[in-house]
């Protein structure tokens, strides 16, 4: 690839919305231009063996793209979920690709791993194997981290990061999220279906953002970085997280226990995101949902500095 083309790709990364892009588009502009090399790509035709039983179409990559690339000329392993195929959900093949990638990084003690989350969680048509895939991935993330590999997660896709995906995210070394990113185990519709609209009104979009959205997760301490909407913003965030993320040891787990105990004590009786933000010291919590990214990042860094030693 010539220098002009590389320059053009890099310029585009500033323009293109992470939320709107497909997984392959994100990858194209996220890594150093032309550096991505896929493992078992679509040509290998490794598809779900189970979706045909339900008369559902398969995808040649099962919605999970894994491979190696370069970020700032340094090697990384990458996994990207396609949220527009089966909601980015973890099926047997989809999950096994990430498991294998993480185990490879573990045993080779590198390179670091970046996961581009975009998932509703376990793929229900493959529920038992999808659930087990999540369990294996969580273990593989922790084993890779213990071997000195950093595993960084990026969240800002259409499907958010829900269900088992949110548990995998919780195991990562560090996370970045955009305004449109959402993290939760139970999605809004699932809570409403099980507990009623009085518990959670899934149609109240503002409520969804205040409870699970990127700004709330950043202020709560559930992610380290809040980023703008472009692919370049995520690229910058990944670079920063890879520089700062901790390895895993007992002290980190003790610090996480203390961090979460402190959260329960401080915010356990809050009824709404607004109450949490007020308790944190935001003078006018009601304006936070409408704030532009730069202003919000400044506020967040003022009232809640990110920690890198307790995840």
């Amino acid at each position: 690839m010539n220098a002009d083309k590389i320059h053009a790709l890099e310029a585009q990364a500033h323009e293109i919305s992470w939320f709107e892009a497909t997984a392959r588009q994100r990858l194209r502009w996220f890594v150093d231009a032309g550096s991505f090399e896929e493992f078992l790509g679509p040509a290998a035709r490794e598809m779900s063996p189970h979706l045909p039983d339900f008369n559902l179409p398969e995808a040649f990559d099962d919605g999970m793209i894994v491979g190696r690339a370069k970020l700032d000329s340094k090697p990384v392993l990458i996994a990207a979920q396609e949220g527009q195929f089966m909601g980015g959900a973890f099926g047997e093949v989809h999950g096994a690709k990430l498991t294998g990638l993480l185990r490879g990084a573990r045993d080779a003690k590198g390179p670091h791993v970046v996961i581009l989350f975009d998932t509703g969680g376990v793929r229900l048509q493959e529920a038992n194997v999808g659930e087990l895939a999540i369990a294996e991935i969580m273990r593989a993330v922790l084993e890779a981290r213990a071997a000195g590999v950093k595993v960084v997660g990026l969240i800002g896709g259409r499907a958010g990061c829900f269900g088992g995906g949110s548990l995998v995210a919780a195991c990562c070394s560090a996370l970045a999220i955009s305004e449109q990113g959402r993290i939760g185990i139970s999605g809004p519709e699932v809570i409403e279906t099980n507990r009623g609209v009085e518990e959670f009104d899934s149609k109240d979009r503002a409520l969804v953002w205040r409870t699970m959205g990127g700004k709330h997760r950043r202020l709560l301490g559930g992610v380290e970085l809040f980023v703008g909407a472009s692919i370049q913003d995520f690229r910058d965030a990944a670079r920063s997280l890879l520089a700062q993320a901790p390895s895993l040891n007992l002290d980190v787990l003790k610090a996480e226990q203390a961090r979460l105990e402190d959260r329960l004590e401080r915010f356990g009786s809050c009824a709404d995101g607004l109450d949490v933000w007020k308790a944190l010291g935001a003078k006018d919590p009601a304006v936070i949902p409408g704030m532009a990214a730069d202003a919000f990042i400044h506020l967040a860094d003022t009232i809640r500095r990110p920690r890198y030693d307790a995840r």
Partner: protein
Amino acid sequence: MTLDDLLDGLFLQRPNITREGGVLTGQATLKGGGAVEIVGVYDATPLGVDEAIRLSRHVLDALMRGSDDPIFVFVDSGSQRMSKRDELLGVNEFLGHLAKCLIWADMQGRRTLAVLYGSSLAGAIIVTALATGTLLAVPGAKPEVMDLPSMSKVTKLPLAVLEEKAKSTAVFAPGVDNMVKTGSVLEVCKDVPALAEKIAILLGTSRDPNDNRGLLGRERGGRPKAADIARRIYDLAHSAS
């Protein structure tokens, strides 16, 4: 099989086991000898932030005491607690942290062993039963990812279709037999003596540091592709570095 059946059958005496609000914590001594740390969820209690933080605290305290005592996890839970408050507080981090503590214990060479004796669903089963080095089940175990009517709603597939599929494929239908076929559950023990015997055998052999659930699922035919896909990607990732 009830929790009392299990505790009475496996342990000599248990003055140090407390049950509070669906959360079980403590220590006990196996009838065959040997102290164990105990955590668990009972009465099909949903696992939310308040429950998970107590369980992870107990596991961490056990780790900090520095003994080699195995950690047993008894599971009869609901799903993750589905509530606005739990999601607002980041329940994924609390449940994830519990799983991390259990997996970390196993990675350090501590034996971690779960006994599934009741229900368990969704996020809760992932961070308890599926976060240990070994998962055994006993009669009465009723694991589910999601019940079929809810699954029908989410997938938009008719309930009748799902019920029919449930008979022919291990891959998605609820039930412990399917979790055996996919490799999640090592074995179903028919009664407490059989469980005690299996535990004695497991504790008497050295721990396998590898996560072999993929191979088990392939052997048993419930998970045809995962082990091979993971292995092929592993080789590519490993040689890439």
